[in-house]
């Protein structure tokens, strides 16, 4: 019995980590943290950098908040969470300035604005203030990775549509420079996708795709359920008929 419980716990830990990737993806499902998702995804690499920073801030703030959640009075909960998050943001702001100056310049004011990223405060409020440090760390890591995946997806689409290539090593200090794919085509040079309009449209397209998939899934599930109910009804009717026949046979 104890072994079974352990297994269940292990499973829920993995679920804690992976739920943020697709099922509860912060951007495509909950629409949290849309401002950076639109603003820093004009190239894939800035999106990746922002994703990494958010993972660091989210995981560490989740751990700290879950550790001191019992010390914070109920009335000043949100301001204290914000101060904790702001402290971590200030730390990574300084680290980014020291080790990745290009990324620091590219992100601009969106680096300090991680403080008001709804995703981070949302996880602090919804998860870290109710769960233990390990679960909160896993939750923060998973949600952060989901956020990063979404940013990479959006950034990739925008950069390919705008330039026909995906450059790396420009903003992050990777040590090597180059481009991932390189399509030389006049079709793939739509400047509009670097600009703000392209950001809105690309996110709209991806959201529509996610919505189409989830719609199809729910329809499938509803169909399966309907079929199951029909079958049960049919079985019940069959049983009733048999019983009635039996009774009829007994009386005659």
């Amino acid at each position, binding site marked *: 019995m104890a072994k079974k419980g352990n297994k269940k716990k292990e499973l829920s830990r993995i679920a804690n980590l992976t739920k943020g990737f697709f099922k509860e993806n912060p951007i495509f499902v909950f629409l949290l943290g849309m401002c950076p998702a639109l*603003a820093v995804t004009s190239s894939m690499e800035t999106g990746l950098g922002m994703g990494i920073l958010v993972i660091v801030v989210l995981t560490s703030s989740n751990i700290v908040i879950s550790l001191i959640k019992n010390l914070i009075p109920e009335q000043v909960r949100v301001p204290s969470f914000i101060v904790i998050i702001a402290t971590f943001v*200030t730390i990574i702001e300084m680290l980014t300035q020291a080790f990745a100056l290009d990324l620091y310049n590219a992100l601009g*004011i969106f680096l300090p604005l991680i403080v008001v990223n709804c995703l981070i405060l949302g996880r602090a409020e919804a998860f870290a203030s109710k769960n233990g440090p390990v679960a909160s760390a896993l939750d923060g890591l998973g949600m952060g990775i989901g956020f990063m995946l979404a940013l990479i997806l959006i950034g990739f689409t925008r950069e390919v549509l705008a330039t026909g290539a995906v450059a790396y090593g420009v903003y992050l200090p990777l040590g090597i420079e180059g481009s991932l794919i390189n399509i030389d085509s006049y079709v793939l040079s739509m400047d509009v996708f670097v600009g703000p309009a392209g950001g809105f449209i690309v996110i709209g397209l991806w*959201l529509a*795709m996610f919505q189409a998939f989830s719609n199809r899934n729910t329809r499938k599930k509803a169909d399966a359920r309907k079929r199951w109910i029909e079958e049960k009804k049919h079985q019940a009717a069959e049983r009733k008929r048999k019983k009635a026949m039996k009774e009829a046979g007994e009386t005659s």
Partner: protein
Amino acid sequence: MSITVFFVAIISSMLINNVILMRFLGICPFLGVSKKTESAVGMSVAVMFVMVIASIVTYLLYYYVLEPNNITYISTIAFILVIASLVQLVEMFIKKVSKKLYKSLGIYLPLITTNCAILGVVELNIASGYPTDYGVLQGLFVASTAAFGTALGFGLIIFAFSSIRERLDSANVPEAWKGVPISLVIAGIMALAFLGLGGIV
């Protein structure tokens, strides 16, 4: 300093560098409370309140407290604290002064703390470096004018967008595009339209 400085500040922060469509700040309330025109107007009035007061307070805080003491690196923490407490104060003030106003704005006020438009405008005010152009005290007037213009731009877009969304409710939209996806594409088209205002000032 002539009056044109203020005029330019308002036009450029309201239309050319529109806070939602060009700078991507405040997208959450833009998508969240734009389903009805009424709530959109309430939200933008509350944002205007907090944005102007917050930019005045943080400007003074930065140039009279943080910079002389060489502690500008804690500016983000200081600013977010100022905004959070300001929101609380404004909420209490409105509650005391007008019950009616409180009822219509009350639910939006707590949301403003995490509205990135407020912190974004505050940070942009500091990053613009107004004191080098106009002097510290006159820079304050330009900064607050820019904040006012930004809030006007926020209100304009969120109002226009909510009107479009109300029309959209009765439109025949494909199932996959219903709700947020089609709204985002509409916002993209609005952003394209606003690109045309680029050369005004």
